[in-house]
């Protein structure tokens, strides 16, 4: 399993270190704990982005100008040190690397998990673990599909009725118009999926990084829950504000 050799991005060194087969027992498999560490690191990077992005989105409540200005400011970060939009592209490359690393490690682990239980149980009641924990993989796929749609919608504008890159506020308002209820519905679904993904994901990432006290476990679960709820509420507030006419 040498997918790590083919990955690129800033974390490549870390990825290699964490997943390299053990020195003590040289084997051909990338280490499962290493893969988890990669997933957790990339996942947390994505969480950071989600918070920043949410903060940006919430500017919509300040006003259309402020929101549009934010979009422009995004492209100006780093100037004059960096040419315009370079920061944005750096961020995009970073995010893409993180997503690729995240999904690739998730895929390897998912495949191994399937191979680890070739014969299923005839009788298996609902597992005891939380719903969130059980839906990580499907939740992830839904999020991925959403992001593709979302980028085509609001970044490139391809799927957006307005599609004016200079005026994201208009794009957003057009998006969540009551007549396009299905778009709002899809956003809602996706955001709830993100919420579930992170409710287990953030806890899981902290555990993967080594959280190991019983008290800390409660704290980690609480942090995960609070952050996920904040994200879901923060994100959902935008479409519903548009829908209800609060923002127009």
């Amino acid at each position: 399993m040498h997918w790590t050799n083919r990955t690129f991005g800033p974390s490549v060194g870390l990825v290699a270190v964490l997943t390299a087969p053990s020195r003590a027992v040289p084997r051909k498999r990338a280490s499962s704990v290493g893969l988890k560490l990669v997933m957790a690191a990339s996942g947390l990077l994505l969480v950071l982005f989600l918070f920043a992005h949410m903060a940006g989105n919430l500017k919509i409540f300040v006003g259309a100008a402020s929101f549009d200005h934010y979009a422009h400011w995004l492209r100006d970060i780093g100037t004059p040190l960096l040419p315009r939009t370079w920061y944005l592209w750096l961020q995009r490359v970073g995010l893409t690397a993180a997503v690729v690393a995240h999904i690739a490690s998730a895929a390897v682990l998912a495949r191994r998990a399937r191979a680890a239980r070739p014969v299923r149980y005839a009788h298996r009641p609902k597992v005891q673990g939380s719903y969130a924990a059980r839906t990580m993989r499907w939740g992830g796929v839904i999020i991925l599909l959403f992001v593709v749609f979302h980028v085509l919608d609001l970044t490139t504008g391809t799927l957006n009725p307005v599609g004016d890159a200079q005026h994201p506020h208009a794009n957003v308002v057009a998006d969540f118009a009551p007549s396009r209820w299905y778009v709002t519905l899809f956003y809602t679904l996706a955001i709830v999926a993100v919420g579930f993904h992170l409710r287990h994901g953030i806890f899981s990432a902290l555990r993967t990084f080594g959280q190991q006290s019983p008290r800390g476990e409660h704290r980690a679960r609480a942090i995960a829950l609070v952050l996920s709820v904040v994200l879901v509420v923060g994100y959902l507030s935008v479409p519903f504000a548009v829908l209800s006419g609060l923002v127009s």
Partner: protein
Amino acid sequence: MDITLRVWRQAGPTERGRMVTYLVEDISPDASFLEMLDVLNERLILEGDEPIAFDHDCREGICGMCGMMINGVAHGPERATTTCQLHMRHFKDGDTIEVEPWRAAAFPVVRDLVVDRSAFDRIIQAGGYITAPTGAAPDAHATPVPKADADAAFEAATCIGCGACVAACPNGSAMLFTAAKVGHLGLLPQGQPERDSRVSGMVAAHDEAGFGGCTNTGECTTVCPKGIPLTLIGRLNSDYRKSRTGRGR
């Protein structure tokens, strides 16, 4: 009490298996689950059938030999209980009970409910020990161990190697078992010199054996008859990371 049993029967590792239904009558609620199977087996033998093969030895919850999925739960419905410690009084008269072997690629079925758990031994071989040649030991009081550490190490060391954690884990992961040993030895001063090589060796052997990775689902600890805590997996992760990046030590 009368029970309907649906049991996985499989003649050998390469044979096809299937669930077979048996009616077991007049079982005492004081009988253990394994004794109930004994009673059924006695009858099967006299009827000319082959009895159901299942592993067991101590029958008091310490050897880790027994274990089966009972109604889809490893070691059955009671918490912190091995199959041999489960008593029929926890079922109702007339219940239907489904019994299957542990299912994991790393635990191939040998026959009926018996599986091959030698993968666990291979994980231990990869570092689950402290190198202490016989006769070279310093006096036992030479290194005091804080009581809290000794107790925590003991807690981790109570793992009986039954495999229920693997059976229950949706990923077929043996991380709880591995973490228990890494935790036991890593918590003691005697275990420090080999701490890095132990964790990376054992994780490699774990993966090599065909167990899945852990995604912190927590099913394992729920069925673990010894209540090995999930936090030990966090400890293993942390040890593993430090063994790779060298940070902190």
